């Protein structure tokens, strides 16, 4: 599976784990990963521990999630980035929009 999801913390946290390359081919599944979830979800945790690479369309998908999760008020944490992934997020200055750990 390219993307795995699980609910935590009384269904308030949604953990989305992305495996392999996070690029345009992931578009549909990534979207489904957060859209088909109970309304109790408040926080989104993107687990990149198994993500090897992400491209600009992946950045776009993260922005779509942010928009879906309430824009400015969205609570999205990106965790366990490898060096390459972290670099791309840094170049794009995405730490201004997301909580990256």
């Amino acid at each position: 599976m390219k993307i795995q999801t699980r609910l935590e913390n009384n269904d308030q946290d949604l953990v989305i784990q992305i495996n392999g390359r996070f690029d345009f081919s992931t578009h549909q599944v990534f979207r489904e990963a957060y859209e088909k979830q109970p309304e109790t979800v408040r926080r989104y945790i993107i687990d990149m521990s198994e993500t090897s690479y992400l491209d600009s369309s992946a950045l776009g998908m993260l922005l779509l999630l942010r928009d879906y999760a309430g824009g400015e008020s969205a609570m999205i944490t990106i965790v366990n980035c490898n060096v390459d992934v972290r670099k791309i997020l840094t170049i794009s200055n995405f730490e201004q929009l997301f909580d990256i750990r």
Partner: protein
Amino acid sequence: MMDKTPIQVLIADDNAVDRKILARILSNQGNEVVEATNGAEAVSLFVEHRPDMVLMDIMMPVMDGQEAARLMKQEAGEDFIPIIFLTSLTDVQGLADCLESGGDDFLTKPYSPVVLQAKVRAFYRMREMHRTLQEQRDTIARHNEHLLYEQEAAKAVFDNVAHHGCLSAQNIRYMLSPLALFNGDVVLAARGPSGTMQLLLGDFTGHGLPAAIGAMPLAEVFYGMTQKGFGLSDIVREINLKMHGVLPVGYFCCAVLVEMNFDTKSVSLWMGGVPDCYLLRHQGELVPLRSKHLPLGVLSNQSFDGSVERFDLSNEDRFLLWTDGITEVQGDSGDMFGDERLRHTIEAAKTPDDAFDAILDAVDRFKNRESLNGDDRTLIEMKMVDRDLLDDVSVQVASGPASGPIDWSMNYCLGPESLRHFNPLPLMVHILMEVPGLRVISGQLYTVMAELFSNAFEHGVLKISSGLKHSSQGFLKYYQEREQRINALTEGFVNISMTHSGDGSSGDLVIMLEDSGKGFDVNAHLNPSSMAGASTYCGRGISLVKEICDSLEYHNGGSQVIARLHWDEQEHGVRLQDEHGA
């Protein structure tokens, strides 16, 4: 399902008994049968009926089965019409030859009705599948052709918008390798009215049409505002606003913008979402440049940061700029060219002049030939030079009297709600730019308007003490304070009046700003010497305005200011040169 659409089978056999037996079995099973007695007849019936499949004997008079099969396959073209040879042969080589000569399968006599029916159906299914596949392929091909056609049109429109820039200037080298017909990279360059040069390198997410469409407003804003004399910060802010408005969520434009002033040798730089680029000094020092901002189009303008970095350059100092296409070029082992290699390549270049070609060479050598995977590869070098090396800025000043509005006045009063959300400067400057003679000094006019307005708004209406700005740390605090007070603003006004008179070849402009504030210590600001060394941050604005204007007066204790400017077509050249010399 099979019963509804009868399968049309062409049977070719010179042996009448065998043929009749086969025809009987097939028609009993619900198929439509056409009979031929030799190869030549079979071919002409094939052309006439275009059957779903052919069952054909090999040994026949007039024309044998192999030759007939060859002609049928030729006639069928891309259409798949299975040919099944009928044979009593039992030797393996004979059977293999059947298939070699264009047959798709064979049936040995005597026929088993069950096997026959199964084969006919199996081949019919295969034929259907082939047909579906072909239809889909044709649809895709048609769509692709249409898409390319559209991209070509989009590119033509874009080229018309983008190519009146100054990319061919002496101090710029660039390389654009389009991955698609219209790639996601945009390179724009233009000269401002005061002689500055502004350059934009942008990389849109996605290729093709979304990028082409986004590039249109981008180019228009960039060229329009550069020509009107706006500074980099305003341009980048306006572009962001535009991109945020037109691009759907998830689409954005990574960009680096450079503004070069060839007279003061200073540079402003804004970078958002672009990989590290470099400033390569003439003596070889390499200064990395890092993106400090989010890409264009991501943030709304309230949270957008248009602040620029400033550099002082010497002649032959140059910027080397690229998009992620260069660093993400893939090598033979699938790894990427990367920042490290890029930096080493530049460091290894003999002279700064060689760096550009060295990068192109290195990327070319590294690149995996087979890799279809790749981004847009764009590389730009922009060099600081003396202004005389560049062509003169062509400012379109229509001469002669009565061209454009010359005798007018206006009054524009902004209340608290407007002041909180709206920056009136571009609009005001736009009005001024309608006067042909003022276009030449649009940069200076913008400075005047900007300084006077920010003084009126920030010190007058918002009542922030300019004392905060005395140190660079206070500067930051100042802007935090400003932000807070803007959000809390409920009363006050700034009134802008402008009057112009003249005859078309010379004119007088009077700008008056009034604000609701209590004024300030005018003398302290007008005489920076009395500010005890702390004048660099805040005294500068007004003294700059004083320098540009012919006169500057404060009234009502500082809450009203009147600036006067005289322009003369004949004198502009002289006056501007004086300033550049200073």
